[in-house]
């Protein structure tokens, strides 16, 4: 193929090959570093060990936990899906900042939305690497299988991942705008919504004014939905639809914010100076 032929292909508005190339780039990073892969699974495993023992203790001292076997372990696993989903997205972006590679990428035909799609795919891969070992550990050690949640688990997983992508988009936009000085946001931002998400307790526990905030978060519907499945065996479909609609709104808003920030980065010359 001549250079001109490849250039014509490059002009296509969307390319799976370009998106795949970016995924390949991140897979190369993971493949080349066993400590990184171990690190992905390390914290979810440690969380699982700790919350597993807490669950065993509370099962004999709390009627609420006793009635809902695995409610805390399930919550830990789903929280990790949300947190790892966002972190997987943001850290893949940070790889470009750390290696001062953004300018190389954006003088190619790679579109910003193809780049974002590759970050989304990587967040799924990194989350599965992180959470699956913890889920298997829960079966082995505590005889609790999160897979017993059945089909709703798939909905919970993707609803939480979507929220992770929305938050990840906002965080990466802020890092793109303000540089690596803002990189710690990738590790701490998600904890700001944890108290309102009702991860380990019902939203009803929150003060009334905070409940209003909680019900604006898709994660609150997911964790309430998980408890409904565990305690009542019921799936609250309307809650899941509400969470999906909220996620769509947040992803659209976060995507627009990211694209606006990308425009600002091109206006202010930030793409050449990132990482410094």
């Amino acid at each position: 193929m001549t250079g001109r032929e490849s250039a014509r292909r490059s002009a296509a508005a969307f390319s799976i090959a370009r998106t795949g190339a970016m995924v390949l780039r991140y897979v190369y990073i993971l493949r080349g570093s066993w400590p990184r892969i171990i690190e992905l699974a390390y914290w979810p495993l440690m969380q699982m060990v700790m919350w597993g023992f807490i669950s065993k203790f509370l099962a004999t001292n709390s009627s609420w936990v006793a009635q809902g076997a695995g409610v805390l372990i399930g919550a830990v696993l789903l929280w990790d899906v949300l947190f790892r989903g966002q972190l997987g997205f943001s850290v893949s972006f940070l790889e470009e900042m750390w290696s001062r590679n953004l300018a190389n990428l954006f003088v190619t035909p790679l579109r910003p939305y193809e780049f974002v799609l590759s970050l989304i795919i990587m967040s799924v891969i990194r989350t599965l690497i992180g959470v699956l070992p913890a889920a298997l550990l829960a079966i082995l050690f505590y005889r609790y299988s999160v897979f017993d949640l059945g089909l709703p688990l798939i909905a919970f997983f993707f609803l939480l991942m979507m929220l992770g992508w929305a938050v990840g988009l906002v965080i990466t936009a802020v890092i793109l705008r303000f540089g690596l000085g803002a990189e710690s946001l990738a590790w701490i931002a998600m904890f700001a919504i944890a108290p309102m998400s009702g991860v380990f307790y019902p939203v009803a526990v929150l003060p009334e004014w905070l409940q209003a905030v909680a019900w604006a978060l898709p994660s609150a519907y997911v964790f309430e939905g998980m408890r409904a499945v565990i305690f009542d065996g019921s799936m609250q479909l309307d809650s899941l639809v509400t969470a999906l609609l909220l996620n769509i709104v947040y992803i659209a808003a976060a995507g627009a914010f990211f694209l606006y920030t990308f425009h600002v980065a091109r206006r202010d010359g930030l793409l050449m100076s990132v990482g410094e």
Partner: protein
Amino acid sequence: MDDQAAGDGSSPDLCASAPSIEVRGLIKSYGAVRAVDGIDFSIAPGETAALLGANGAGKTTTISILIGLLVPDSGSVTVLGEDMLRHRYRVLGRINLSSPYVDLPRRLTVEENLRVFGNIYGIKDIPRRIGELAEELDLGPLLGRPSGQLSSGQRSRVALAKALINRPEVLFLDEPTASLDPDTADRIRTYLAAYQARENATILMASHNMAEVERMCSLVMIMKAGRIVREGAPRSLIEHFGRTTLEEVFLDIAREKAAQ
């Protein structure tokens, strides 16, 4: 442009075809600082041109605009016949950049880096293209090594390989031989000249190496405070200033002796 040296006839005939790069009235400010102040220039297909200037003269800002990384305040930029400000994606697959100010991912091997960029550019037979570049730029022993473990000279050659992976019709080079030893730098210059002749590629470089510019370029544009203050073929500029080297011309202009 304040002044122009007379052409010496060595530049390609600009009337023969549309310019590869055409810039008109380009202005870019950062706050109160005007980094590029209304520059105009054209570079013909197959021509090698250089932007010269002291640090902060506006060279990198100009190149950043030309490759679509930076949006100007006003003016127009046409590359390969396309408006870069409106349709840059029609062009980006046909151009490339090598700059010491951007890195390739350090944890990836040289081959992995080239493979990723080959895929982004839609190169069909990537192993073959990597093999060609490895042979031409003497990268064979480096292909399996992480980019972060290379010397600065080796990194420059790998960056150049990345910049050539898509056989660009227009190549932007920022300090292409800055960290290379004299022997390697000479081989890179020879290679670039051969590439330009073979592909009829246009090359625009920013460099502080005046001997390199004299040897490689048919057009030199000297920038100062965001403006092109002199433009012409190296030989004609040297004769115009009554000097023996381009470096002396550059120093004259930088120290404002040109006005005397």
